[in-house]
C-alpha cells in the first residue's frame, strides 16, 4: 500500500527516458469521442424500456396542496404516475453531507424544477402527455432567491427545522460556516500604510455539460438493480441506491458510461434514487434522458459575495487580509458546505500574510442545489483576493506582477498558518514569472488595451482510496481495471502509458475497463483532479505486483533461484541479461499459459480535527495573465492574449495537459465574461437553456491562447506528477478584471464582465468625471 503523499521515493521513480510516459500519446477513445462513435447514455439501447418524464411547477418555492394524477394515469400507455405518497414513508432523503434531499418533493417545492411527480409510460410521448395531464394544486411561498433575502431577519426557512434538529443554526438559512484566522490583526494594522476595502460578487453558473445525461435502471432477475448513469462517482451511487432501497451492495451494479463532460456536476446522485424506486415499483426498465434545461435545474456552482479588507505596507507587502464570504447555495446541501469550507480555507491566496481572518458561510436558498464545480469554491475567493491585490497595487503605484512577487510564498513556506497550516509544495514564483514573460508584461500597450495577472490555488484531495487490478495476458497485452470515470480528461490514456512503461507492453496493447462496479474494483471518486495521483499510483503498484509475481514464477519454472533475479520496469534481470518482461512472463507461465494479475491500492487517510478532514495531497497552482482590448463605446472585450501556466510536477502526457489547461481557461472565461444563471422574483430561471445562457464558443476563444507548464518533478503522483485539471480557471476572473481595469481606468467588481456591464461602468465613470470639479 502506498501513501501518495508520504511515499519515498516517488511512485514509479524517475520517468523512463524512452517510455510512453511523457509522450503526447493519442487519447484513448478519442477518435470515437470526436467522430460520434462513442455511445453516451442516451445512445444505449434498452429494448422494451419504459420512459420517464418529470412533473414540475413553474415556481421556486410553493406548498403542494394536492396532486391529482387520476386523469394522467388513465391515458394510453401510462404505466405509473408516482408522487411522494407512493414512496416509502417518511420519504427517503439522501445527500453527501446532510441527508436532506427527498427522492421526490414532499409537501413543498424548494427550487424551480424540483420534481413533484414522475410518469412512467410506454413511450416518451405518452409520458409527456401524462405529465401535462397531472394537476398540481400549490400555493406560492415567499421563497428566498438571493443572499440578502436568505439572510434577512425573519426570512423564509428553506429547510424545515426537523431536517436538521441537532443543528444550532437550524432556525436560519445558514447551513454551515467556517472560520480561519491567524496572526495579530491589531499589530498588523499598526504597520499598515494603505487599506483597500471592497465587495465582489461571483454569479451562479451552471456546468453545461454537452451531454445532459440521464439514468436508466434495469431490475434484475435476482432482485437487484442495474443502474446506468454517466456519473463521476459510480461507487458512491452504488452505496446511495443500495442504502435507500435496502439492498446489499452486490445487488446494485452501477454502469457508468463515459460522461460527456462532468465538471463536478455529475458527482453526486440526483434522480437515480427516484429512478431506482420507479424500476422496483414497475418491474420495468425505466429510462430518463435529461434535457439541457433539466440539467440547469439539477446542478450549478454556488454564487458568492465577498467583502474584503486588505492592508499593505508602502512597499506592497500585505499586512492583513479580512474576508467575509457568503456562498449562495441551493435548497439542499449536496456537497456545497464542503465547497464553502474548502474554498475559503485557501481564501487568503498563496501569500505570506501575517494576519488573516476569514469567515465564510454556506447560505441556503430556493434555487438549484449547488454542487462541486471545477475549482471547488476557490475561483470565487480568488476573484475577491486577487482583485484586492490589484486594488492595493493601484493605490501604491505598483503593478500586478510587482505586488504578487512581493507576497507570494516560497517553497516550504506557510501560506495558511495557525493550527492547520499549509505550506507551498512547489516553486510557485516560477509560474508567475513564466506567465509574465509569455504575456509580454513589460511590452508597451496599444490604445484601449490592458493586462492583468493573477494567481490561483486549490487544495487537492484530502483523503482518497483507489484500487486497481492489472492483468498481463499470455501474449503480452494487458487489461487495466480502474474505476476512474473518463469524462474527457483522458485518464485511461495515462493508465495505458503507465502500464506500457511498467510492464513493457506497447501502449496500443493496453486496454482499460472502467464504469462498472460489478467488474472494476473500488475507487472513491473522480474528483479534485485526483486520479493521476491516486489511481495512477494504484496502477503502478499493480504493475509492480505483477513484476514480483513474474519473478517468483520464473524462478519456480526455470529453477533459477529467486535471489539471482531482479525486476525493473519492463524487464526481468537475470544473472546474464535483461529480459523483456513479457518474454519472461511467457516463459514463466509455460505451456499451460494463463496470466498474471496484479493488485494496487493507493490510500490517503484523512487527519481528524483538520477543517478539511486532512491535508491536501497536493496543491494546484496556476498563474493566468491576460491582455484585453476593450471597445469603449460598446463595452465588448477582445482577448488578444491569454496565458495560463500551471505547476504540474511532471507532464505525463503533454497534449492532455495542454488540453485540460485550454479547456479550463476557456471555461474560466465563461464565468468571467458571460455566464450567469438569472432568477426572477418567483425563483424561476429566466435564462433556462442554451439560447440565453451563454457559454464561450470557439469564436470567443482569445486570439492567442497560450498554456505552459512548470515541471519540477515534485508532485506525489506517478513520476512526480500532480493533478492539473482545474488550475487554469482558478484565477481567470482576477486576471481579466485587472486587464479591463487597466484598459478602461474603471474597476468592475461584479462578474461576469458582460459588454453591458463594462459599458455601464465606463459610462458611470465618465458621468462622475464630468460632474466632478476640474482640477485647477
Amino acid at each position, binding site marked *: 500500500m502506498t501513501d501518495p503523499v508520504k511515499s519515498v521515493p516517488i511512485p514509479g521513480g524517475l520517468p523512463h527516458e524512452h517510455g510512453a510516459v511523457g509522450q503526447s500519446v493519442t487519447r484513448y477513445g478519442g477518435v470515437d469521442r470526436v467522430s460520434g462513435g462513442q455511445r453516451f447514455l442516451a445512445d444505449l439501447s434498452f429494448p422494451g424500456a419504459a420512459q420517464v418524464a418529470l412533473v414540475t411547477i413553474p415556481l421556486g418555492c410553493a406548498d403542494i396542496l394536492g396532486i391529482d394524477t387520476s386523469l394522467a394515469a388513465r391515458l394510453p400507455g401510462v404505466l405509473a404516475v408516482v408522487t411522494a405518497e407512493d414512496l416509502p414513508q417518511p420519504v427517503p432523503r439522501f445527500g453527501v453531507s446532510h441527508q436532506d434531499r427527498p427522492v421526490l418533493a414532499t409537501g413543498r417545492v424548494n427550487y424551480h424544477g424540483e420534481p413533484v411527480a414522475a410518469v412512467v409510460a410506454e413511450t416518451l410521448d405518452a409520458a409527456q402527455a401524462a405529465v401535462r395531464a397531472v394537476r398540481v394544486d400549490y400555493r406560492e411561498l415567499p421563497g428566498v432567491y438571493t443572499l440578502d433575502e436568505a439572510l434577512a431577519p425573519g426570512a423564509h426557512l428553506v429547510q424545515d427545522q426537523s431536517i436538521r434538529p441537532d443543528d444550532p443554526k437550524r432556525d436560519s438559512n445558514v447551513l454551515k460556516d467556517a472560520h480561519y484566522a491567524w496572526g495579530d490583526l491589531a499589530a498588523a494594522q499598526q504597520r499598515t500604510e494603505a487599506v483597500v476595502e471592497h465587495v465582489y460578487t461571483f454569479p451562479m453558473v451552471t456546468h453545461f455539460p454537452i451531454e445532459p445525461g440521464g439514468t436508466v435502471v434495469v431490475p434484475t432477475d435476482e432482485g437487484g438493480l442495474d443502474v446506468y448513469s454517466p456519473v463521476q462517482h459510480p461507487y458512491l451511487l452504488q452505496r446511495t441506491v443500495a442504502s435507500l432501497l435496502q439492498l446489499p451492495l452486490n445487488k446494485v451494479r452501477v454502469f457508468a458510461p463515459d460522461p460527456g463532460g462532468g465538471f463536478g456536476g455529475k458527482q453526486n446522485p440526483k434522480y437515480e434514487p427516484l429512478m431506482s424506486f420507479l424500476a422496483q415499483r414497475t418491474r420495468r426498465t425505466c429510462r430518463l434522458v435529461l434535457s439541457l434545461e433539466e440539467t440547469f435545474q439539477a446542478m450549478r456552482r454556488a454564487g458568492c459575495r465577498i467583502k474584503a479588507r486588505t492592508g499593505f505596507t508602502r512597499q506592497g507587502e500585505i499586512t492583513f487580509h479580512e474576508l467575509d464570504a457568503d456562498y449562495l447555495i441551493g435548497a439542499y446541501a449536496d456537497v456545497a458546505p464542503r465547497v464553502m469550507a474548502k474554498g475559503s480555507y485557501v481564501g487568503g491566496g498563496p501569500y505570506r500574510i501575517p494576519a488573516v481572518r476569514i469567515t465564510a458561510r454556506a447560505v441556503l436558498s430556493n434555487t438549484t442545489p449547488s454542487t462541486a464545480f471545477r475549482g471547488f469554491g476557490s475561483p470565487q475567493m480568488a476573484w475577491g483576493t486577487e482583485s484586492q491585490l490589484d486594488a492595493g497595487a493601484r493605490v501604491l503605484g505598483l503593478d500586478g506582477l510587482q505586488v504578487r512577487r512581493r507576497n507570494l510564498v516560497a517553497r516550504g513556506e506557510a501560506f495558511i498558518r495557525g493550527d492547520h497550516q499549509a505550506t507551498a509544495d512547489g516553486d510557485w514564483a516560477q509560474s508567475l514569472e513564466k506567465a509574465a514573460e509569455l504575456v509580454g508584461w513589460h511590452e508597451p500597450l496599444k490604445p484601449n488595451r490592458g493586462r492583468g495577472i493573477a494567481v490561483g490555488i486549490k487544495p487537492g484531495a484530502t483523503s482518497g482510496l483507489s484500487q486497481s487490478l492489472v492483468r498481463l495476458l499470455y501474449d503480452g497485452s494487458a487489461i487495466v481495471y480502474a474505476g476512474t470515470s473518463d469524462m474527457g480528461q483522458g485518464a485511461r490514456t495515462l493508465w495505458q502509458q503507465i502500464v506500457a512503461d511498467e510492464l513493457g507492453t506497447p501502449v496500443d496493447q493496453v486496454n482499460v475497463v472502467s464504469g462498472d462496479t460489478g467488474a472494476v474494483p473500488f475507487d472513491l471518486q473522480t474528483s479534485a483532479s485526483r486520479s493521476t495521483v491516486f489511481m495512477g499510483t494504484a496502477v503502478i503498484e499493480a504493475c509492480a505486483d505483477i513484476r514480483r509475481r513474474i519473478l517468483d514464477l520464473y524462478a519456480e519454472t526455470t529453477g533459477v533461484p529467486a535471489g539471482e533475479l531482479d525486476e525493473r520496469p519492463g524487464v526481468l534481470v537475470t544473472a546474464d541479461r535483461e529480459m523483456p518482461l513479457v518474454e519472461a512472463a511467457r516463459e514463466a507461465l509455460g505451456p499451460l499459459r494463463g496470466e498474471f494479475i496484479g493488485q494496487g491500492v493507493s490510500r490517503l487517510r484523512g487527519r481528524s480535527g483538520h477543517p478539511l478532514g486532512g491535508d491536501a495531497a497536493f496543491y494546484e497552482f496556476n498563474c493566468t495573465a491576460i491582455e484585453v482590448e476593450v471597445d469603449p463605446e460598446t463595452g*465588448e472585450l477582445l482577448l488578444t492574449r491569454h496565458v495560463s501556466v500551471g505547476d504540474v510536477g511532471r507532464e505525463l502526457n503533454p497534449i492532455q495537459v495542454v488540453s485540460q489547461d485550454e479547456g479550463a481557461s476557456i471555461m474560466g472565461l465563461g464565468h468571467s465574461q458571460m455566464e450567469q444563471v438569472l432568477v426572477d422574483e418567483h425563483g424561476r430561471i429566466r435564462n433556462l437553456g442554451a439560447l440565453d445562457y*451563454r457559454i464561450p464558443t470557439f469564436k*470567443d476563444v482569445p486570439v492567442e491562447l497560450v498554456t505552459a507548464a512548470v515541471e519540477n518533478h515534485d508532485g506525489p503522483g506517478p513520476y512526480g506528477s500532480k493533478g492539473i485539471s482545474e488550475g487554469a480557471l482558478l484565477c481567470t476572473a482576477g486576471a481579466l478584471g485587472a486587464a479591463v481595469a487597466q484598459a478602461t481606468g474603471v474597476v468592475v467588481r461584479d462578474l461576469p464582465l458582460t459588454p453591458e456591464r463594462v459599458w455601464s461602468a465606463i459610462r458611470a465613470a465618465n458621468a462622475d468625471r464630468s460632474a466632478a470639479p476640474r482640477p485647477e
Partner: protein
Amino acid sequence: MRYHRPTSKADALAVLAAEGDRARPLVGGTDLLVGLRHSTIAPTWIVDLKGITDLPEPITLTEDGIRIGPTMTLGELVAHLDVRRSFPALSEAALTVGSVAIRNRASLVGNLCNASPAADTVPALLVLGAVVTIESVDGARTVSLADFFLGPRRTQCHASALVTRIDLPWPPAGTGSAFQRLTRRRGVDLGTVSVAAAVSSDGRMSLGLGAVGPKPLMAEVAEPVDLTDEPQLERVLDQLLNVAAPITDVRASREYREAMLRVLGKRAVLAAAGRRTRMEAA
C-alpha cells in the same frame, strides 16, 4: 405528424390551403425544429419545399437585380460573389446567422418568414429595397419587405401561403451598404441590437434596425447628408433612430440597447459611406 415532400408548387400550396395552421413549410428547419422541440408549435403536417421542381432557382441574376428563391441557403448566399460585391450589408448580415452548420441549412426566406424582430438578415434586406412575392392557391402578389412584417412572428404571408421569391434591385451606382450587430458573445448568438445602413452617392441614407421593436424597423432620410458635418450626422441619426422602441429583457436593458443603436448606427453609416467612396473611385 406527417411529413410531406411535394414535387410541385401547386401540390404544396394545395396542402397548405387545406391544412392551414396545421401545416408548416420546411426548408432548413433551423427555426422549425427548435419550435417542435420546445412545443411552441405543434403542426400535424410538415411540408418540405426542397423537392419542388417549379420554384424559382436559389439565385438568379437579372438586369434589374437578383432574385432569390425559397431554397437559397444562407451558406450559399454568403459565398456568392455578386451578392458580396453589390449587397455587402446582406452578406455581412447573413454571415452573422448562427454557425457554419446552421447557415448550411437555413434559408434566407425562412429567416424572413420566421419574423423574429431580431432576424439578422432583415435590416439589410430592408435598406436594400427587397420585395417579396407571396403565393397561395388564390394567386401571387408582391409586397415591399417594409410592409411584410405585421408584428412579432406575424407577416403578410398567412398559414396557407408561401414566400416564393425575394427580389433585390441592383443598388443605384455609388451606393454603399453595411451591417453592424452587437451580441453577448462572438460566436452563435442572437443580436442584442442590429443595424444595416445604405448610403447613396449624394448622402441620402436609410437604416434597418433589428431587435429594437416588435418587428424589424426601417427609417430613411430623403435629403442628402454631409457626412463630414458631425453635428448634422448626429441630428440625422437622432431622427432615424427615433422609430426604435427597445425594451429591457434578459439579453439587455433598454438603456443599453438605445446607446448601442446609436453606436452601431453611426458605424454602419460610416462603413456604408466608405464603401460608396471606394466604388466611386473604382
